[in-house]
């Protein structure tokens, strides 16, 4: 339990710093930035205290808002993502996840990819809707969601592969 707590605290701080100091300075091809902090929400232990989880997601988004001058967009997107996560776990991995029989990193690649992709797209859609905050810019919101979402997915996938242990 203690080591899980330690891992989560480290992940929280590391992803926060990585996001602010590296990923938001990338501006690949002009404006592409991966939002790697979603990895914290994606990988948070299943079946752990859910209230605490939602609250942590909010805090993470809120701190990012302070750093990136984005109002409440990141906080809204992160907290929504944390709340709807169980539905997507069920959709991607089947009902087994409720018995905590799966570990995210030990799961097969295809359901994991579905789970990552769907949650990242939803997160980005909420994020860009709030950043642009203008219904006449719907096209640009969708465009940004898809392009940035793909970029984020790539980064998240690589980071996850890099840091996950291959024991199981």
């Amino acid at each position: 339990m203690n080591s899980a707590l330690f891992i989560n605290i480290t992940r929280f701080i590391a992803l926060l710093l990585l996001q602010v100091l590296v990923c938001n300075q990338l501006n690949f091809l002009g404006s592409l930035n991966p939002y790697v902090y979603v990895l914290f929400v994606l990988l948070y232990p299943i079946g752990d205290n859910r209230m605490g989880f939602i609250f942590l997601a909010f805090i993470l988004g809120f701190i990012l808002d302070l750093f990136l001058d984005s109002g409440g967009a990141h906080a809204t997107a992160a907290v929504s993502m944390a709340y709807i996560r169980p539905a997507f776990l069920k959709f991607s991995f089947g009902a087994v996840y409720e018995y905590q029989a799966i570990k995210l990193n030990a799961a097969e690649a295809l359901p994991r990819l579905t789970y990552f992709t769907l949650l990242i797209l939803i997160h980005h859609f909420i994020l860009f809707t709030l950043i642009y905050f203008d219904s006449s810019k719907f096209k640009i919101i969708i465009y940004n969601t898809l392009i940035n979402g793909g970029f984020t997915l790539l980064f998240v996938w690589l980071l996850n592969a890099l840091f996950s242990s291959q024991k199981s």
Partner: protein
Amino acid sequence: MQRIIYFLIRNKNFILFLTLLSISISLNFSYNEYNKSKFINSSNFIFSSLYDTKFTVSKYLNLELQNQLLLEENKNLKKILFNSETPTKSFDSINSIGFEVMTASVIKNSYSKTNNFITINKGSKHGIGIDNGVISSNGVVGIIDKTSSKYARVISILNIKSKINAKLKKSNHFGTLEWNGKNHRLVQLHDIQDLVKLVKGDTVVTSGFSSVFPENIPIGRIESFQLNDTKDLYIINVVLFNDMTNLRHVHIIENLDLEQLKILKRKNE
């Protein structure tokens, strides 16, 4: 009563979610109203000091380029100085209107969003106030919007809420400079009459009407123009002289007569 409590306990996750969601959405709403983002901003001490630390490390990486820019600017200033018998117009106007100039370094910059802000490492302690203008050696950068004691936040010219008064250098026709959020090299000059003869490549400078910037600070040059929907005003695309993606050293301009101008304006109304 017991049922209500039971209901609350059963739905505690949903209630927490709704509370946090409404908090964050209300932050977002108040943020989208101009100038109301009270405490969500990066001129905060803790957040700025992290950017400051990063800046002290990363500033060595492009010292050469920055030196080049400063040399270039010095060269231009010297050229003006040596070629003029009498003090040049632009400097004289700065002195006579009473503008104080300060320097600062950019510690955080963004240009890829629609609401871009810049954080600089000088604040109210160094005499920087809200509504001071910010320029770089090439032209206008933005306007100060929040200050803390050691840091300040600038609304970049690349912010869809930014509005700067500008004019055509050749003919003195003035309009409002805004940004449509699309390309970080192009800003749009609105409200110029269709009677005005425009030429590609003409220079756009500040008009000096807004009392934020002195007159004749360069902004950019005309790239293309078209009439608006009602066919009476131009929308002009202006290419910025500044490379907004690579800002390090900026100058802050404080209008010393701002108070008097404000009093005068109030009397007029």
